[in-house]
Structure formats: structure tokens, C-alpha cells
């Protein structure tokens, strides 16, 4: 092949070579970072990252989410959309440690967060001041998980939350979440364990702004199940 022809061929394929190089770099990084898809301990895995760089190659079946997305912030970011784009799953159904998982992140939406096996939930969403929607927060069916009063600390933009499972213990505090919709508040109240007929008393903190969104009858759903509303 003449030199001229070689140069022409190279120029024609430059973009392909560039893309192939990028793909190789992507694969090398994510194969290592996610242990070829075998990683389950994601402690601090994306902490401090710019969300735009969160482009996982493999689905994540997480057993340790401590600090996983802590301070993962920059532009506001829909985590559900990104996972869909990357065609990967983020599964917390076997996860026990959620300490600061989304703490100080700039996510606007997170999907299904299964805390049914959690032993630690401190500040899981604390200071996630851009968070608007939690698609589905799954509690265990026996209501054994105790809140730490800080899971939703300064989640000031949170509007939408769906609760699945049973809230059975004290310590769940939505005082900072003054934008919660009525439907979200009812999802929380309907998930409260029924302690009527017992001597057990529990407390749920919604805050004055949220309490004002509920009718007397709606508040009574909670109080008649043995829950004091604060």
C-alpha cells in the first residue's frame, strides 16, 4: 500500500480507532472497579464522584452500601434514568449497611431501595438536598427496623416516597421533608404497624407542616394503631 493510501485509511478510521480505545479504557476500568461483575461490597465505591461519570458496566447486587454514593454530586441527576441507560440493575435486597449511602448526593430520584435487611441506616438520605423522589423504600415485613432520626435529615426537596413493608419502630423522622405529598404521607401512615389491642406505643415524626396536610380521620389511622404523631 502506498504511503498516501495508508494515510487515507488511517484518517478514515481515526474515529473508529478512537472509539475502540475509549471502549477499551471503559472496559478496563469498570471490569476492575466492579470485579467483572462479582463485586458486592460497594463501600465508598462512588463516593465523591461526579454523577456524569457513573456509568456502570455490570448490575450491582450490593451487600454493603456504606458511603456508596456519598457526596456523589455535581449536576442534579436521575439515578433511575442512568441505570436504565446503562441497562444495569441496582439491587439492595441483600444489603445490611446503608450508612450515608446517598448522603450529600445530588440525585433527584432514586429507585427501589430495599432496606429490609438493613442493620445500619444512619443518614442514608441525609443532606440529599436535591432528592425529590424515592420510588419505593422497602421495609421488612415484621417491622423490626429502628430508625435513627436522621435518615431524611435535610431532605428538604423530597416530595414523593412510596413505602412497602412495615414501619414498626421509633426513629423515623420526616420533619425536614416539608414538601411530602399527601399520597406520600398516607403511604407512610398506611405502612405503620398496628399495635392496637396491645400496650405498645410508638412515635412517628412528620413535623407540623406535614401534619397540617392530614385530616383528623387520617391522623386517627395512625393514632388508633398506637402511634403518636409528632
Amino acid at each position, binding site marked *: 500500500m502506498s504511503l498516501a493510501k495508508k494515510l487515507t485509511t488511517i484518517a478514515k478510521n481515526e474515529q473508529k480507532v478512537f472509539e475502540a480505545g475509549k471502549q477499551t479504557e471503559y472496559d478496563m476500568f469498570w471490569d476492575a472497579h466492579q470485579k467483572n461483575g462479582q463485586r458486592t461490597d460497594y463501600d465508598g465505591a462512588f463516593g465523591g464522584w461526579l454523577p456524569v461519570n457513573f456509568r456502570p458496566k455490570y448490575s450491582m447486587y450490593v451487600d454493603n452500601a456504606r458511603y456508596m454514593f456519598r*457526596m456523589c454530586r455535581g449536576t442534579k441527576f436521575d439515578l433511575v434514568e442512568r441505570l436504565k441507560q446503562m441497562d444495569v440493575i441496582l439491587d439492595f435486597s441483600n444489603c445490611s449497611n446503608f450508612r*450515608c449511602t446517598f*448522603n*450529600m448526593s445530588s440525585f433527584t430520584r432514586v429507585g427501589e431501595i430495599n432496606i429490609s435487611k438493613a442493620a445500619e441506616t444512619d*443518614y442514608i438520605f*441525609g*443532606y440529599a438536598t436535591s432528592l425529590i423522589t424515592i420510588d419505593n423504600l422497602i421495609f421488612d415485613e415484621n417491622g423490626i427496623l429502628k430508625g435513627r432520626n*436522621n435518615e431524611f*435529615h*435535610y431532605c428538604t426537596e423530597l416530595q414523593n416516597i412510596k413505602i412497602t413493608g412495615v414501619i414498626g419502630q*421509633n426513629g423515623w423522622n420526616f420533619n425536614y421533608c416539608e414538601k411530602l405529598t399527601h399520597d406520600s404521607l398516607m403511604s407512610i401512615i398506611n405502612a405503620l404497624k398496628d*399495635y*392496637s389491642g*396491645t*400496650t*405498645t*406505643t*410508638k*412515635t412517628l*415524626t412528620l*413535623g*407540623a407542616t406535614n*401534619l397540617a396536610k392530614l385530616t*383528623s*380521620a387520617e*391522623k*386517627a389511622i*395512625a*393514632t*388508633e*394503631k*398506637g*402511634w*403518636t*404523631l*409528632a
Partner: protein
Amino acid sequence: MDFSIMKKSTIELIKLTASDGMTLTNGETYSKEIYLGVNDSVDNWREIPDSEVPEITPEEIVANGVAKT
């Protein structure tokens, strides 16, 4: 018209409201107003001055990297 499906029910809510400058607490929860659960009692709640309501601890501030606003 058949009225046999009509049901009358009474809703009772016991609301406690803290005095000015005070906060209600049961030792674990702090609030200006509460609605008592059926198994709870007024005796479980007392008023404390607002100044005595626990603030976020310095350890927690450090852990989270931002000060309380």
C-alpha cells in the same frame, strides 16, 4: 332508600401543644405539637425550654461534612 349501610363513627384525637418557648418531649422525640396514640399517655410527655432541645452533635457534623443550617 336503604339506610342500613350508614355508619356513624367518632374520631377522637388528643393533641398536646407546647407553651410558648417550650418543646414537648418524651425523652426521645421533640416536637411543638403531638397527637397521642391510643396506647400513649399525657404523663409520658413533658415540656422543656426550647434551649434544652438537643442539637445535632459535633461528631455528626464532622461525619457529614456540613454544619447544620
